[in-house]
């Protein structure tokens, strides 16, 4: 996957373009890098290069799944059966979208809170899952699994459902249609904006960010 790490020229992504005027005017002294375009599927080398705090634009195929779908995936693994899609190198987005309106590719689709998937995530990471997109802090067990088997956790902006839906170019159900918004869908995304929270070195932006801005 050499050459994936392309600096974003700002094509079609005005909200991610760094506004230096604002930064200069309000004393934002820290350096904030340009977003990095990332193409799925991900290799170990891809995820090793990501650091907590990196802004990422995901391109390619990702899968959706939340509470009920995760339970079914883990039940399959317990029974020694294969998963309904090849999880190697993939990203799962924790999301339960609104129903798509006629003519719309995908309904509003912001992330759901991730801790409810903590019990299931390590088994999936062990089988090759390379990324998860959600919101909120992960358990120590998930963080350990990410370090051990090389995976990352991304945060998407909670509540930005309309904006995120626009980055979905194609959507199809691959399993568990009966679960409605919780079915597993295969999405083709273009420049889906996320932030790396947990990297393979054990960094956690939730902890470090809060520490940095805490005032006594």
């Amino acid at each position, binding site marked *: 996957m050499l050459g994936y790490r392309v600096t974003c020229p700002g094509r079609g992504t005005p909200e991610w373009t760094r506004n230096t005027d604002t930064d200069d005017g309000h004393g934002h002294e820290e350096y904030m890098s340009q977003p990095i375009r990332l193409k799925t599927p991900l290799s170990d080398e891809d995820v090793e290069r990501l650091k907590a705090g990196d802004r990422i634009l995901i391109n390619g195929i990702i899968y959706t799944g939340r509470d009920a779908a995760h339970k079914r995936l883990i039940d399959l693994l317990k029974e020694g059966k294969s998963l309904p899609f090849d999880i190697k190198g993939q990203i799962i987005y924790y999301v339960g979208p609104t129903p798509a309106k006629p003519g719309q590719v995908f309904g509003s689709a912001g992330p759901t*809170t991730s801790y409810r998937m903590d019990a299931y995530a390590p088994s999936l990471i062990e089988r090759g899952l390379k990324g998860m997109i959600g919101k909120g802090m992960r358990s120590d067990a998930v963080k350990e699994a990410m370090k051990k088997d090389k995976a990352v956790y991304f945060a998407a902006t909670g509540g930005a459902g309309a904006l995120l839906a626009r980055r979905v170019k194609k959507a199809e159900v691959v399993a568990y249609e009966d679960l409605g918004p919780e079915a597993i869908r295969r999405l083709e995304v273009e420049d889906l904006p996320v932030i790396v929270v947990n990297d393979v070195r054990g960094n956690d932006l939730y902890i470090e960010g*809060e520490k940095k*801005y805490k005032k006594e």
Partner: protein
Amino acid sequence: MREISVKLITEKVRDLCMKANTDLGEDVLQAFDRAMQEEESSLGVEILKELKENARIAKEENVPICQDTGFAVVFVELGQDVHLTGGNLTEGIQEGVRQGYRDGYLRKSICHPFTRANTGDNTPAIIHTEVVPGDKVKVTIAPKGGGSENMSRVTMLTPSDGVEGIKRFVVQRVKESGSNPCPPTIVGVGIGGTFEQAALLAKKSLLRSLGSRNPDPELDQLESEILTAINKLGIGPQGLGGRTTSLAVHILMMPCHIASFPLAVNIQCHAQRHKEAII
């Protein structure tokens, strides 16, 4: 006595459900602007910009601001000189919610507590009715998302805890909630009354326009002190670090029992959605 048809109320409820979920209030957008001026984290500023852009897209395309289109919480102020005709008010409101969530392509998020089986139409709605003077009906719809509601608490302080006890509990609640309720949040605080009344006060306080002052100078001062303490926590937009953990603290207070000191904290995510109609 003025006659109002329940069918008209059903229609209003339907429209308000759709409007509340797609059209974020100008007061919230202005609060984002103010927060951008004060936010020290560049990443935090980017997130605030993203939220503003999201609200613009939602309004323009008439799609939900957030995929969690919430529990439909309905406040009704029923004028005592109104005679409702053509049906049952409660059922008329439930029907309005049913239609609004269906026709607006909103997510149905209500289920059986044990089996988790979805009711399929986002009912039942939570309805709070108050009889007031006059011959009008005011209906307010405030869809409430699960992530922020889960971070809310009621506690029964002891009278000796005093105002310091309130500050301590509210700030601690926001701290423990961290990134879960989708900061920047609005913190609704209900003080006094009974156990359930404190919670209702906290929820009602969220209906106040962002940026407005509390009419009680003492509570206004307390709101500002608690907000300052919260925004020192460092949690920031989406919990990724920064100044803007909360956009506002709103307090409603009423007298309580001589033995009690009830306190409720209702956390609201940045998608502070509510719309009202007067019939």
